[in-house]
Protein backbone atom coordinates (compact mmCIF):
# COMPACT_ATOMS: atom_id res chain seq x y z
CA UNK A 1 0.00 0.00 0.00
CA UNK A 2 1.16 3.50 -0.69
CA UNK A 3 0.78 6.26 1.84
CA UNK A 4 -2.34 7.89 0.40
CA UNK A 5 -5.67 6.36 -0.52
CA UNK A 6 -5.71 2.80 -1.91
CA UNK A 7 -5.50 2.71 -5.65
CA UNK A 8 -8.21 0.90 -7.55
CA UNK A 9 -7.06 0.44 -11.10
CA UNK A 10 -9.26 0.55 -14.17
CA UNK A 11 -8.16 -3.02 -14.95
CA UNK A 12 -9.54 -4.19 -11.62
CA UNK A 13 -12.82 -2.39 -12.29
CA UNK A 14 -12.98 -4.02 -15.71
CA UNK A 15 -12.39 -7.46 -14.24
CA UNK A 16 -15.15 -7.04 -11.68
CA UNK A 17 -17.50 -5.67 -14.32
CA UNK A 18 -16.69 -8.66 -16.49
CA UNK A 19 -17.49 -11.09 -13.65
CA UNK A 20 -20.73 -9.23 -13.02
CA UNK A 21 -21.55 -9.31 -16.75
CA UNK A 22 -21.77 -5.51 -16.79
CA UNK A 23 -20.74 -3.16 -19.57
CA UNK A 24 -19.40 0.10 -18.16
CA UNK A 25 -18.54 3.31 -19.99
CA UNK A 26 -15.17 4.93 -19.47
CA UNK A 27 -16.78 7.61 -17.30
CA UNK A 28 -18.53 5.00 -15.14
CA UNK A 29 -15.29 3.07 -14.70
CA UNK A 30 -13.60 6.21 -13.41
CA UNK A 31 -16.45 6.98 -11.02
CA UNK A 32 -16.45 3.43 -9.65
CA UNK A 33 -12.70 3.34 -9.33
CA UNK A 34 -12.88 6.40 -7.08
CA UNK A 35 -15.80 5.01 -5.06
CA UNK A 36 -14.20 1.59 -4.61
CA UNK A 37 -11.02 3.26 -3.38
CA UNK A 38 -13.04 5.18 -0.81
CA UNK A 39 -14.76 2.00 0.40
CA UNK A 40 -11.41 0.22 0.74
CA UNK A 41 -10.05 3.21 2.58
CA UNK A 42 -12.85 2.83 5.10
CA UNK A 43 -11.75 -0.75 5.77
CA UNK A 44 -8.50 0.72 7.07
CA UNK A 45 -10.52 2.38 9.78
CA UNK A 46 -12.18 -0.93 10.63
CA UNK A 47 -8.80 -2.67 10.66
CA UNK A 48 -7.66 -0.33 13.41
CA UNK A 49 -10.19 -1.90 15.81
CA UNK A 50 -8.60 -4.49 18.12
CA UNK A 51 -10.34 -7.80 17.28
CA UNK A 52 -7.70 -10.33 18.29
CA UNK A 53 -9.81 -11.88 21.05
CA UNK A 54 -13.04 -12.01 19.06
CA UNK A 55 -13.83 -15.14 17.01
CA UNK A 56 -13.94 -14.49 13.29
CA UNK A 57 -17.52 -15.63 13.05
CA UNK A 58 -20.27 -15.43 15.63
CA UNK A 59 -24.02 -15.06 15.43
CA UNK A 60 -24.57 -14.99 19.16
CA UNK A 61 -26.69 -18.12 18.79
CA UNK A 62 -25.07 -21.52 18.62
CA UNK A 63 -28.21 -23.62 19.14
CA UNK A 64 -29.30 -25.67 16.14
CA UNK A 65 -31.68 -23.69 14.00
CA UNK A 66 -33.50 -25.95 11.58
CA UNK A 67 -36.87 -26.35 9.93
CA UNK A 68 -38.64 -29.66 9.43
CA UNK A 69 -38.73 -31.09 5.91
CA UNK A 70 -42.32 -30.21 5.03
CA UNK A 71 -43.35 -28.84 1.63
CA UNK A 72 -45.91 -26.08 1.27
CA UNK A 73 -47.06 -23.83 -1.54
CA UNK A 74 -45.61 -20.36 -1.65
CA UNK A 75 -47.97 -17.56 -0.55
CA UNK A 76 -46.39 -15.39 -3.26
CA UNK A 77 -46.48 -16.35 -6.93
CA UNK A 78 -44.21 -14.86 -9.61
CA UNK A 79 -47.30 -13.32 -11.26
CA UNK A 80 -47.90 -11.19 -8.19
CA UNK A 81 -44.70 -9.19 -8.55
CA UNK A 82 -43.12 -9.76 -11.97
CA UNK A 83 -44.25 -8.42 -15.31
CA UNK A 84 -41.48 -10.31 -17.09
CA UNK A 85 -43.24 -13.65 -17.33
CA UNK A 86 -43.99 -15.65 -20.43
CA UNK A 87 -45.74 -19.03 -20.13
CA UNK A 88 -44.69 -19.17 -16.51
CA UNK A 89 -41.01 -18.47 -17.24
CA UNK A 90 -39.13 -15.34 -16.30
CA UNK A 91 -37.93 -13.78 -19.54
CA UNK A 92 -34.44 -12.23 -19.50
CA UNK A 93 -32.03 -11.02 -22.18
CA UNK A 94 -30.40 -13.93 -23.95
CA UNK A 95 -27.28 -15.11 -22.11
CA UNK A 96 -25.69 -17.37 -24.73
CA UNK A 97 -24.70 -16.65 -28.30
Amino acid at each position, binding site marked *: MNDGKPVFSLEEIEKIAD*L*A*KLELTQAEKEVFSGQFAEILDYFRTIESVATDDIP*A*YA*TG*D*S*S*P*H*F*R*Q*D*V*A*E*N*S*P*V*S*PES*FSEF*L*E*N*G*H*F*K*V*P*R*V*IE
Partner: protein
Amino acid sequence: MSGQSQMEFETVIGLEIHTQLATQSKMFCRCSTEFAAPPNANACPVCMGLPGVLPVLNHRVVEFAVRLGLATHCKIRLDSQFARKNYFYPDLPKAYQISQFDRPICENGWVEIQVDGNPKRIGITRIHMEEDAGKLVHEGADRRATYVDLNRAGVPLLEIVSEPDLSSPDEAKTYMEKIHSLVTYLEVSNGDMEKGNMRADANISLRPAGTRELGTRTETKNINSFRFVREALAYEIERQREELLAGRPIVQETRLWNPASKSTFVMRSKEEAHDYRYFPEPDLPLVTIEASWLKEIEATLPELPDAKAQRFREQLGLSAHDADLLVADRRTAEFFEAVVQEGADPKRAANWVMGDLAAKLNEDKTTVTDLKFAAGGLAELIALIGEGTISGRMAKTVFDALYETGQSPRNFVREKGLSQESDTGALEEMIDQVLSDNPHQVAQYRGGKQKVFGFFVGQVMKASGGRANPAIVNGLLKKKLA
Protein backbone atom coordinates in the same frame (compact mmCIF):
# COMPACT_ATOMS: atom_id res chain seq x y z
CA MET B 1 -5.13 -51.74 -19.78
CA SER B 2 -5.97 -50.84 -23.32
CA GLY B 3 -2.93 -50.88 -25.53
CA GLN B 4 -0.76 -48.11 -26.81
CA SER B 5 -2.65 -45.04 -25.64
CA GLN B 6 -1.64 -45.86 -22.06
CA MET B 7 2.01 -46.56 -22.81
CA GLU B 8 3.68 -43.22 -22.21
CA PHE B 9 1.28 -41.46 -19.87
CA GLU B 10 -0.54 -42.08 -16.63
CA THR B 11 -4.02 -40.74 -16.20
CA VAL B 12 -5.02 -38.90 -13.03
CA ILE B 13 -8.73 -38.35 -12.48
CA GLY B 14 -10.72 -36.76 -9.67
CA LEU B 15 -14.51 -36.58 -9.72
CA GLU B 16 -16.89 -34.03 -8.24
CA ILE B 17 -20.28 -35.67 -8.01
CA HIS B 18 -23.44 -33.68 -7.34
CA THR B 19 -26.31 -35.70 -6.01
CA GLN B 20 -29.80 -34.35 -5.47
CA LEU B 21 -31.23 -35.15 -2.06
CA ALA B 22 -34.54 -36.95 -1.59
CA THR B 23 -36.17 -34.28 0.55
CA GLN B 24 -39.79 -33.16 0.28
CA SER B 25 -38.95 -29.46 0.48
CA LYS B 26 -36.07 -27.29 -0.71
CA MET B 27 -32.94 -26.54 1.28
CA PHE B 28 -33.82 -23.13 2.74
CA CYS B 29 -37.56 -22.73 2.06
CA ARG B 30 -40.77 -24.77 2.05
CA CYS B 31 -41.10 -25.09 -1.73
CA SER B 32 -41.62 -28.63 -3.01
CA THR B 33 -38.79 -30.45 -4.79
CA GLU B 34 -41.19 -32.38 -7.07
CA PHE B 35 -39.95 -33.06 -10.58
CA ALA B 36 -41.52 -31.66 -13.77
CA ALA B 37 -43.86 -29.13 -12.15
CA PRO B 38 -45.04 -26.22 -14.34
CA PRO B 39 -42.34 -23.51 -14.59
CA ASN B 40 -41.92 -21.51 -11.37
CA ALA B 41 -44.78 -23.37 -9.66
CA ASN B 42 -42.35 -24.28 -6.86
CA ALA B 43 -40.78 -20.89 -6.25
CA CYS B 44 -41.19 -18.51 -3.32
CA PRO B 45 -39.61 -15.24 -2.19
CA VAL B 46 -36.71 -17.12 -0.56
CA CYS B 47 -35.63 -19.19 -3.57
CA MET B 48 -36.46 -16.37 -6.00
CA GLY B 49 -34.00 -14.18 -4.12
CA LEU B 50 -36.42 -11.37 -3.25
CA PRO B 51 -35.08 -8.73 -0.86
CA GLY B 52 -35.69 -9.07 2.86
CA VAL B 53 -36.05 -12.85 3.10
CA LEU B 54 -33.99 -15.19 5.25
CA PRO B 55 -33.04 -18.82 4.62
CA VAL B 56 -33.84 -21.48 7.24
CA LEU B 57 -31.99 -24.76 6.88
CA ASN B 58 -33.88 -28.01 6.25
CA HIS B 59 -33.05 -30.49 9.06
CA ARG B 60 -33.15 -33.43 6.64
CA VAL B 61 -30.35 -31.99 4.50
CA VAL B 62 -27.95 -32.10 7.43
CA GLU B 63 -29.08 -35.59 8.39
CA PHE B 64 -28.51 -36.83 4.83
CA ALA B 65 -25.07 -35.24 4.63
CA VAL B 66 -24.09 -36.93 7.90
CA ARG B 67 -25.45 -40.29 6.73
CA LEU B 68 -23.34 -40.19 3.58
CA GLY B 69 -20.34 -38.86 5.51
CA LEU B 70 -20.49 -41.75 7.98
CA ALA B 71 -20.95 -44.30 5.19
CA THR B 72 -17.84 -42.96 3.43
CA HIS B 73 -15.70 -42.96 6.60
CA CYS B 74 -15.50 -39.16 6.70
CA LYS B 75 -14.78 -37.00 9.69
CA ILE B 76 -18.00 -35.14 10.54
CA ARG B 77 -17.60 -31.49 11.44
CA LEU B 78 -19.93 -30.64 14.31
CA ASP B 79 -19.95 -26.91 13.53
CA SER B 80 -19.76 -26.55 9.77
CA GLN B 81 -20.43 -23.32 8.00
CA PHE B 82 -22.20 -22.09 4.90
CA ALA B 83 -20.49 -19.71 2.50
CA ARG B 84 -21.61 -17.56 -0.38
CA LYS B 85 -20.23 -18.37 -3.77
CA ASN B 86 -20.75 -15.26 -5.85
CA TYR B 87 -21.37 -15.33 -9.56
CA PHE B 88 -23.72 -13.61 -11.94
CA TYR B 89 -25.96 -15.71 -14.10
CA PRO B 90 -29.74 -15.66 -14.49
CA ASP B 91 -30.10 -19.21 -13.11
CA LEU B 92 -29.00 -17.81 -9.75
CA PRO B 93 -31.48 -15.15 -8.62
CA LYS B 94 -29.55 -14.08 -5.50
CA ALA B 95 -26.33 -13.71 -7.56
CA TYR B 96 -24.74 -16.10 -5.10
CA GLN B 97 -25.12 -19.76 -4.32
CA ILE B 98 -25.26 -20.85 -0.69
CA SER B 99 -22.57 -23.52 -0.49
CA GLN B 100 -19.78 -24.50 1.86
CA PHE B 101 -16.17 -23.49 1.49
CA ASP B 102 -13.48 -23.92 4.14
CA ARG B 103 -15.64 -25.63 6.75
CA PRO B 104 -17.54 -28.39 4.94
CA ILE B 105 -19.65 -30.86 6.89
CA CYS B 106 -17.64 -33.99 5.92
CA GLU B 107 -13.94 -34.45 5.17
CA ASN B 108 -11.20 -37.05 4.73
CA GLY B 109 -13.13 -40.21 3.94
CA TRP B 110 -12.84 -43.06 1.48
CA VAL B 111 -14.76 -45.68 -0.43
CA GLU B 112 -13.51 -48.98 -1.76
CA ILE B 113 -14.01 -50.06 -5.37
CA GLN B 114 -13.03 -53.27 -7.16
CA VAL B 115 -10.40 -52.88 -9.89
CA ASP B 116 -9.70 -56.08 -11.84
CA GLY B 117 -10.92 -58.07 -8.87
CA ASN B 118 -8.74 -56.22 -6.34
CA PRO B 119 -9.94 -53.66 -3.82
CA LYS B 120 -8.78 -50.06 -4.29
CA ARG B 121 -9.44 -47.19 -1.91
CA ILE B 122 -10.58 -43.90 -3.40
CA GLY B 123 -10.15 -40.94 -1.09
CA ILE B 124 -13.03 -38.55 -0.44
CA THR B 125 -11.63 -35.06 0.03
CA ARG B 126 -14.89 -33.56 1.21
CA ILE B 127 -18.67 -33.69 1.04
CA HIS B 128 -20.52 -30.42 1.32
CA MET B 129 -24.10 -29.16 1.20
CA GLU B 130 -25.21 -26.63 -1.38
CA GLU B 131 -28.29 -25.42 -3.22
CA ASP B 132 -28.98 -26.12 -6.88
CA ALA B 133 -29.44 -23.34 -9.44
CA GLY B 134 -32.49 -22.79 -11.64
CA LYS B 135 -32.94 -23.99 -15.20
CA LEU B 136 -32.41 -21.83 -18.26
CA VAL B 137 -34.25 -22.44 -21.52
CA HIS B 138 -32.71 -20.84 -24.58
CA GLU B 139 -35.11 -22.29 -27.15
CA GLY B 140 -38.16 -20.12 -26.48
CA ALA B 141 -40.41 -18.10 -28.76
CA ASP B 142 -38.11 -15.07 -28.66
CA ARG B 143 -34.65 -15.84 -30.04
CA ARG B 144 -33.18 -12.87 -28.20
CA ALA B 145 -34.41 -14.07 -24.83
CA THR B 146 -33.53 -16.68 -22.24
CA TYR B 147 -36.31 -18.17 -20.13
CA VAL B 148 -35.80 -18.89 -16.45
CA ASP B 149 -37.49 -21.61 -14.38
CA LEU B 150 -36.62 -21.47 -10.67
CA ASN B 151 -38.27 -24.75 -9.61
CA ARG B 152 -34.84 -26.30 -9.18
CA ALA B 153 -33.30 -23.24 -7.51
CA GLY B 154 -32.68 -24.06 -3.87
CA VAL B 155 -33.11 -27.82 -4.25
CA PRO B 156 -30.58 -29.45 -1.88
CA LEU B 157 -27.46 -31.12 -3.25
CA LEU B 158 -24.47 -32.86 -1.80
CA GLU B 159 -21.20 -32.36 -3.65
CA ILE B 160 -18.84 -35.28 -3.17
CA VAL B 161 -15.26 -34.44 -4.10
CA SER B 162 -12.84 -37.32 -4.62
CA GLU B 163 -9.08 -37.28 -4.33
CA PRO B 164 -7.30 -37.63 -7.71
CA ASP B 165 -7.07 -41.37 -7.03
CA LEU B 166 -8.79 -42.65 -10.16
CA SER B 167 -6.53 -43.94 -12.93
CA SER B 168 -8.85 -44.80 -15.81
CA PRO B 169 -12.29 -44.15 -17.25
CA ASP B 170 -13.37 -47.60 -16.03
CA GLU B 171 -12.30 -46.81 -12.47
CA ALA B 172 -14.16 -43.50 -12.63
CA LYS B 173 -17.30 -45.29 -13.79
CA THR B 174 -16.99 -47.91 -11.04
CA TYR B 175 -16.48 -45.16 -8.47
CA MET B 176 -19.51 -43.23 -9.68
CA GLU B 177 -21.58 -46.42 -9.53
CA LYS B 178 -20.34 -46.97 -5.99
CA ILE B 179 -21.42 -43.50 -4.88
CA HIS B 180 -24.76 -44.05 -6.61
CA SER B 181 -25.18 -47.34 -4.81
CA LEU B 182 -24.34 -45.72 -1.46
CA VAL B 183 -26.72 -42.77 -1.78
CA THR B 184 -29.58 -45.05 -2.80
CA TYR B 185 -28.87 -47.55 0.02
CA LEU B 186 -28.83 -44.67 2.48
CA GLU B 187 -32.00 -43.28 0.87
CA VAL B 188 -30.46 -39.83 0.79
CA SER B 189 -31.08 -39.62 -2.97
CA ASN B 190 -33.44 -41.33 -5.38
CA GLY B 191 -30.45 -41.71 -7.70
CA ASP B 192 -32.70 -41.26 -10.71
CA MET B 193 -30.20 -40.57 -13.49
CA GLU B 194 -32.92 -39.71 -16.01
CA LYS B 195 -34.10 -36.88 -13.76
CA GLY B 196 -30.57 -35.56 -13.33
CA ASN B 197 -30.30 -36.75 -9.72
CA MET B 198 -26.59 -37.37 -10.21
CA ARG B 199 -24.15 -35.33 -12.29
CA ALA B 200 -20.39 -35.39 -12.34
CA ASP B 201 -17.57 -33.05 -13.26
CA ALA B 202 -14.22 -34.70 -13.91
CA ASN B 203 -10.74 -33.25 -13.40
CA ILE B 204 -8.34 -34.98 -15.73
CA SER B 205 -4.62 -34.70 -16.26
CA LEU B 206 -1.87 -36.83 -17.76
CA ARG B 207 1.70 -37.21 -16.61
CA PRO B 208 4.63 -39.21 -17.94
CA ALA B 209 4.38 -42.75 -16.57
CA GLY B 210 6.30 -43.19 -13.34
CA THR B 211 6.52 -39.49 -12.46
CA ARG B 212 4.85 -37.93 -9.43
CA GLU B 213 4.14 -34.33 -10.40
CA LEU B 214 0.61 -33.68 -11.61
CA GLY B 215 0.16 -32.37 -15.15
CA THR B 216 -2.06 -29.44 -16.08
CA ARG B 217 -5.68 -30.51 -15.70
CA THR B 218 -8.90 -29.78 -17.49
CA GLU B 219 -12.37 -30.01 -16.05
CA THR B 220 -15.08 -31.77 -18.02
CA LYS B 221 -18.64 -30.93 -17.04
CA ASN B 222 -22.08 -32.28 -17.85
CA ILE B 223 -21.47 -35.97 -17.24
CA ASN B 224 -24.83 -37.32 -16.18
CA SER B 225 -24.68 -41.06 -16.84
CA PHE B 226 -22.36 -43.96 -16.10
CA ARG B 227 -21.83 -44.49 -19.81
CA PHE B 228 -20.94 -40.83 -20.38
CA VAL B 229 -18.35 -40.81 -17.61
CA ARG B 230 -16.43 -43.52 -19.44
CA GLU B 231 -16.90 -42.00 -22.90
CA ALA B 232 -16.15 -38.43 -21.85
CA LEU B 233 -13.00 -39.39 -19.96
CA ALA B 234 -11.73 -41.64 -22.75
CA TYR B 235 -12.22 -38.79 -25.20
CA GLU B 236 -10.52 -36.21 -23.00
CA ILE B 237 -7.57 -38.49 -22.19
CA GLU B 238 -6.97 -39.13 -25.88
CA ARG B 239 -7.27 -35.42 -26.69
CA GLN B 240 -4.70 -34.49 -24.03
CA ARG B 241 -2.38 -37.28 -25.13
CA GLU B 242 -2.42 -36.03 -28.71
CA GLU B 243 -1.71 -32.48 -27.54
CA LEU B 244 1.21 -33.62 -25.39
CA LEU B 245 2.67 -35.87 -28.09
CA ALA B 246 2.49 -32.95 -30.51
CA GLY B 247 4.45 -30.86 -28.00
CA ARG B 248 1.55 -28.52 -27.23
CA PRO B 249 0.92 -27.61 -23.59
CA ILE B 250 -2.43 -28.47 -21.98
CA VAL B 251 -4.52 -25.39 -21.32
CA GLN B 252 -6.28 -25.36 -17.95
CA GLU B 253 -9.89 -24.95 -18.99
CA THR B 254 -13.44 -26.09 -18.45
CA ARG B 255 -14.85 -28.31 -21.16
CA LEU B 256 -18.34 -29.54 -21.76
CA TRP B 257 -19.19 -33.12 -22.70
CA ASN B 258 -21.50 -33.33 -25.69
CA PRO B 259 -23.09 -36.80 -25.73
CA ALA B 260 -24.39 -36.34 -29.28
CA SER B 261 -20.98 -35.68 -30.87
CA LYS B 262 -19.19 -37.81 -28.25
CA SER B 263 -16.62 -35.07 -27.72
CA THR B 264 -15.76 -32.28 -25.29
CA PHE B 265 -15.46 -28.62 -26.18
CA VAL B 266 -14.21 -25.55 -24.34
CA MET B 267 -16.86 -23.91 -22.20
CA ARG B 268 -15.28 -20.81 -20.74
CA SER B 269 -11.89 -19.95 -19.37
CA LYS B 270 -11.63 -21.39 -15.89
CA GLU B 271 -12.49 -18.81 -13.31
CA GLU B 272 -10.01 -18.78 -10.48
CA ALA B 273 -11.41 -19.82 -7.13
CA HIS B 274 -11.10 -16.32 -5.68
CA ASP B 275 -13.26 -14.92 -8.45
CA TYR B 276 -16.20 -16.44 -6.60
CA ARG B 277 -15.26 -14.28 -3.62
CA TYR B 278 -16.42 -16.85 -1.08
CA PHE B 279 -17.27 -15.47 2.32
CA PRO B 280 -19.16 -16.83 5.36
CA GLU B 281 -22.93 -16.72 4.86
CA PRO B 282 -24.13 -14.07 7.30
CA ASP B 283 -27.79 -15.12 7.05
CA LEU B 284 -27.20 -18.57 8.56
CA PRO B 285 -25.71 -19.64 11.89
CA LEU B 286 -23.13 -22.40 12.09
CA VAL B 287 -24.58 -25.84 11.44
CA THR B 288 -24.22 -27.39 14.87
CA ILE B 289 -24.66 -31.12 15.27
CA GLU B 290 -25.14 -32.49 18.75
CA ALA B 291 -23.33 -35.69 19.68
CA SER B 292 -26.61 -37.42 20.54
CA TRP B 293 -28.00 -36.71 17.07
CA LEU B 294 -24.83 -37.99 15.44
CA LYS B 295 -25.14 -41.23 17.44
CA GLU B 296 -28.78 -41.56 16.47
CA ILE B 297 -27.95 -41.21 12.77
CA GLU B 298 -25.12 -43.70 13.07
CA ALA B 299 -27.41 -46.22 14.74
CA THR B 300 -29.95 -46.07 11.91
CA LEU B 301 -27.56 -46.63 9.00
CA PRO B 302 -28.71 -49.61 6.89
CA GLU B 303 -26.46 -52.51 5.94
CA LEU B 304 -24.24 -51.03 3.22
CA PRO B 305 -23.32 -52.69 -0.09
CA ASP B 306 -19.81 -53.81 0.99
CA ALA B 307 -21.13 -55.53 4.11
CA LYS B 308 -23.98 -57.08 2.16
CA ALA B 309 -21.63 -58.42 -0.52
CA GLN B 310 -19.42 -59.94 2.15
CA ARG B 311 -22.42 -61.64 3.73
CA PHE B 312 -23.56 -62.98 0.33
CA ARG B 313 -20.09 -64.45 -0.21
CA GLU B 314 -19.62 -65.92 3.24
CA GLN B 315 -23.13 -67.05 4.14
CA LEU B 316 -24.66 -67.80 0.75
CA GLY B 317 -21.53 -68.98 -1.05
CA LEU B 318 -21.78 -66.55 -3.95
CA SER B 319 -18.71 -65.59 -5.97
CA ALA B 320 -17.27 -62.10 -5.40
CA HIS B 321 -18.37 -61.13 -8.91
CA ASP B 322 -21.98 -62.25 -8.39
CA ALA B 323 -22.17 -60.72 -4.92
CA ASP B 324 -20.90 -57.33 -6.17
CA LEU B 325 -23.33 -57.31 -9.07
CA LEU B 326 -26.27 -58.20 -6.86
CA VAL B 327 -25.64 -55.62 -4.14
CA ALA B 328 -25.11 -52.66 -6.49
CA ASP B 329 -28.84 -51.95 -6.37
CA ARG B 330 -30.41 -52.20 -2.94
CA ARG B 331 -33.86 -53.28 -4.13
CA THR B 332 -32.42 -55.99 -6.37
CA ALA B 333 -30.31 -57.26 -3.47
CA GLU B 334 -33.34 -57.32 -1.20
CA PHE B 335 -35.44 -59.14 -3.79
CA PHE B 336 -32.69 -61.73 -4.22
CA GLU B 337 -32.55 -62.26 -0.47
CA ALA B 338 -36.31 -62.69 -0.33
CA VAL B 339 -36.12 -65.39 -3.04
CA VAL B 340 -33.47 -67.21 -1.01
CA GLN B 341 -35.59 -66.85 2.12
CA GLU B 342 -38.43 -68.58 0.26
CA GLY B 343 -36.18 -71.60 0.05
CA ALA B 344 -34.40 -71.14 -3.30
CA ASP B 345 -30.81 -72.21 -3.82
CA PRO B 346 -28.74 -68.96 -3.62
CA LYS B 347 -26.63 -69.65 -6.71
CA ARG B 348 -29.69 -70.46 -8.84
CA ALA B 349 -31.57 -67.48 -7.42
CA ALA B 350 -28.61 -65.20 -8.24
CA ASN B 351 -28.51 -66.51 -11.81
CA TRP B 352 -32.21 -65.84 -12.36
CA VAL B 353 -32.16 -62.40 -10.75
CA MET B 354 -29.06 -61.22 -12.65
CA GLY B 355 -29.89 -63.11 -15.84
CA ASP B 356 -33.42 -63.46 -17.18
CA LEU B 357 -35.02 -61.10 -14.68
CA ALA B 358 -32.45 -58.33 -15.14
CA ALA B 359 -32.75 -58.66 -18.93
CA LYS B 360 -36.56 -58.30 -18.80
CA LEU B 361 -36.40 -55.34 -16.42
CA ASN B 362 -33.82 -53.68 -18.59
CA GLU B 363 -35.91 -54.27 -21.71
CA ASP B 364 -39.00 -52.80 -20.04
CA LYS B 365 -37.03 -50.00 -18.33
CA THR B 366 -38.52 -50.89 -14.98
CA THR B 367 -37.31 -52.17 -11.60
CA VAL B 368 -37.93 -55.03 -9.17
CA THR B 369 -40.27 -52.83 -7.17
CA ASP B 370 -42.81 -52.93 -10.03
CA LEU B 371 -42.91 -56.70 -10.53
CA LYS B 372 -46.20 -58.54 -11.02
CA PHE B 373 -44.95 -61.42 -8.85
CA ALA B 374 -43.44 -61.80 -5.40
CA ALA B 375 -40.14 -63.41 -4.47
CA GLY B 376 -42.03 -66.64 -3.70
CA GLY B 377 -42.98 -66.98 -7.38
CA LEU B 378 -39.37 -67.13 -8.50
CA ALA B 379 -38.51 -69.48 -5.65
CA GLU B 380 -41.31 -71.80 -6.83
CA LEU B 381 -39.95 -71.77 -10.38
CA ILE B 382 -36.47 -72.62 -9.11
CA ALA B 383 -37.96 -75.46 -7.04
CA LEU B 384 -39.74 -76.89 -10.11
CA ILE B 385 -36.41 -77.08 -11.94
CA GLY B 386 -34.64 -78.51 -8.89
CA GLU B 387 -37.13 -81.33 -8.46
CA GLY B 388 -37.02 -82.13 -12.18
CA THR B 389 -40.64 -81.21 -12.89
CA ILE B 390 -39.59 -78.86 -15.67
CA SER B 391 -36.48 -78.66 -17.82
CA GLY B 392 -34.27 -75.62 -18.12
CA ARG B 393 -35.83 -74.89 -21.49
CA MET B 394 -39.38 -75.12 -20.17
CA ALA B 395 -38.37 -72.88 -17.31
CA LYS B 396 -37.93 -69.98 -19.74
CA THR B 397 -41.56 -70.31 -20.83
CA VAL B 398 -42.73 -70.60 -17.24
CA PHE B 399 -40.65 -67.57 -16.27
CA ASP B 400 -42.11 -65.51 -19.13
CA ALA B 401 -45.61 -66.32 -17.87
CA LEU B 402 -44.62 -65.48 -14.30
CA TYR B 403 -43.12 -62.18 -15.40
CA GLU B 404 -45.97 -61.16 -17.71
CA THR B 405 -48.95 -62.24 -15.60
CA GLY B 406 -47.64 -63.10 -12.14
CA GLN B 407 -49.24 -66.55 -12.40
CA SER B 408 -47.89 -69.15 -9.98
CA PRO B 409 -45.35 -71.33 -11.84
CA ARG B 410 -46.79 -74.54 -10.35
CA ASN B 411 -50.31 -73.68 -11.52
CA PHE B 412 -49.07 -72.61 -14.92
CA VAL B 413 -47.18 -75.88 -15.42
CA ARG B 414 -50.21 -77.91 -14.37
CA GLU B 415 -52.58 -75.89 -16.56
CA LYS B 416 -50.44 -76.14 -19.68
CA GLY B 417 -49.44 -79.74 -19.05
CA LEU B 418 -45.84 -78.59 -19.28
CA SER B 419 -44.37 -80.87 -16.68
CA GLN B 420 -41.42 -82.95 -17.61
CA GLU B 421 -41.79 -86.72 -18.00
CA SER B 422 -39.70 -88.18 -15.21
CA ASP B 423 -41.67 -91.41 -14.77
CA THR B 424 -39.06 -94.09 -15.44
CA GLY B 425 -41.61 -96.66 -16.52
CA ALA B 426 -43.11 -94.43 -19.21
CA LEU B 427 -39.69 -93.32 -20.41
CA GLU B 428 -38.43 -96.89 -20.59
CA GLU B 429 -41.32 -97.80 -22.89
CA MET B 430 -40.47 -94.91 -25.20
CA ILE B 431 -36.79 -95.87 -25.23
CA ASP B 432 -37.52 -99.50 -26.02
CA GLN B 433 -39.70 -98.36 -28.91
CA VAL B 434 -36.99 -96.04 -30.27
CA LEU B 435 -34.33 -98.75 -30.04
CA SER B 436 -36.48 -101.35 -31.79
CA ASP B 437 -37.38 -98.83 -34.53
CA ASN B 438 -33.71 -98.07 -35.23
CA PRO B 439 -31.73 -101.36 -35.22
CA HIS B 440 -29.18 -99.98 -37.70
CA GLN B 441 -28.17 -97.12 -35.33
CA VAL B 442 -28.11 -99.50 -32.35
CA ALA B 443 -25.61 -101.68 -34.22
CA GLN B 444 -23.51 -98.61 -35.08
CA TYR B 445 -23.42 -97.50 -31.44
CA ARG B 446 -22.50 -100.90 -30.16
CA GLY B 447 -19.80 -101.02 -32.85
CA GLY B 448 -18.16 -98.01 -31.15
CA LYS B 449 -19.78 -95.05 -32.89
CA GLN B 450 -20.49 -93.00 -29.73
CA LYS B 451 -21.91 -90.06 -31.65
CA VAL B 452 -25.14 -91.96 -32.38
CA PHE B 453 -26.06 -91.56 -28.72
CA GLY B 454 -27.32 -88.03 -29.37
CA PHE B 455 -29.58 -89.40 -32.09
CA PHE B 456 -31.32 -91.70 -29.57
CA VAL B 457 -31.78 -88.88 -27.06
CA GLY B 458 -33.30 -86.76 -29.83
CA GLN B 459 -35.70 -89.53 -30.83
CA VAL B 460 -36.87 -90.08 -27.25
CA MET B 461 -37.37 -86.35 -26.74
CA LYS B 462 -39.38 -86.24 -29.95
CA ALA B 463 -41.50 -89.22 -28.88
CA SER B 464 -42.25 -87.47 -25.57
CA GLY B 465 -43.20 -84.21 -27.21
CA GLY B 466 -40.18 -82.51 -25.69
CA ARG B 467 -41.27 -83.36 -22.15
CA ALA B 468 -38.86 -86.16 -21.29
CA ASN B 469 -36.44 -85.39 -18.49
CA PRO B 470 -33.11 -85.43 -20.37
CA ALA B 471 -31.05 -86.53 -17.36
CA ILE B 472 -33.23 -89.60 -16.80
CA VAL B 473 -33.31 -90.39 -20.54
CA ASN B 474 -29.50 -90.29 -20.64
CA GLY B 475 -29.22 -92.65 -17.71
CA LEU B 476 -31.77 -95.12 -19.01
CA LEU B 477 -30.32 -95.10 -22.53
CA LYS B 478 -26.80 -95.80 -21.29
CA LYS B 479 -28.10 -98.77 -19.27
CA LYS B 480 -30.09 -100.21 -22.16
CA LEU B 481 -27.32 -99.77 -24.74
CA ALA B 482 -24.61 -101.15 -22.51
